[in-house]
């Protein structure tokens, strides 16, 4: 299990290759990558990501351990950035490895659903016209009920 909370960018391809390369006997690797985007067309110039040092690492470990106990997994990687990011920069990634694809897919979706609503990160969109905190979406909270 490899969990990193960092301000620096990460190399998605290099991390994915390294993760897949250190698996043995795993037939399936799934990755998810979250990218800064301006969905509401507010002309966002940057995104400021705040987090709760100490609790963040604990929360991510807990979510990863829960995933490991629910599915037959080889390994889990979580990288989540904080600080100031620009559109098209990568915010975070998760990777899961499993013998069978269903486990790898489900664990990755589970990690993402809990990361969205249970890991202490907050996003602020910076635009030319003013800044605003990204509101939690009801559907993200609802997504937890399926697990």
């Amino acid at each position: 299990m490899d969990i990193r909370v960092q301000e620096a960018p990460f190399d998605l391809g290099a991390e994915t290759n390294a993760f897949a390369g250190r698996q043995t006997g795993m037939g399936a690797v799934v990755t998810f990558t979250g990218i800064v985007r301006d969905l509401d067309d507010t002309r966002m110039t940057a995104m400021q990501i705040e987090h709760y040092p100490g609790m963040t690492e604990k929360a991510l470990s807990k979510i990863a351990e829960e995933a490991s106990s629910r599915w037959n997994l080889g390994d889990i990687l979580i990288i989540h950035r904080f600080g100031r990011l620009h559109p098209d920069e990568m915010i975070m990634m998760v990777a899961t490895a499993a013998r069978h694809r269903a486990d790898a897919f489900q664990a990755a979706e589970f990690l993402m659903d809990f990361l969205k609503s249970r890991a202490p990160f907050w996003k602020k969109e910076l635009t030319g016209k003013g800044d605003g905190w990204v509101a939690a979406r009801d559907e993200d909270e609802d997504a937890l009920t399926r697990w």
Partner: protein
Amino acid sequence: MDVLYFAWVRERIGQPKERIESNPATVMDLVNQLRAREPRYEAAFADLGALRVAVDQELSDFDAPLKNAREVAFFPPMTGG
């Protein structure tokens, strides 16, 4: 006990962290003590439904006891990922 604020709660209160010397019995008691201080606290704690609380870095509830708690944090719903 340290009290931490994040995101717009931090902005409304105007600081990320402060030390509280009183010994509130529950999170709600702490909220009421803070609310009584100044309008900026009242504004931050106006709608508890829009807030979340963590006690010693674990998500908790407003009626949770604070006995032996070292750190309480208030923040809006999280938006990771």
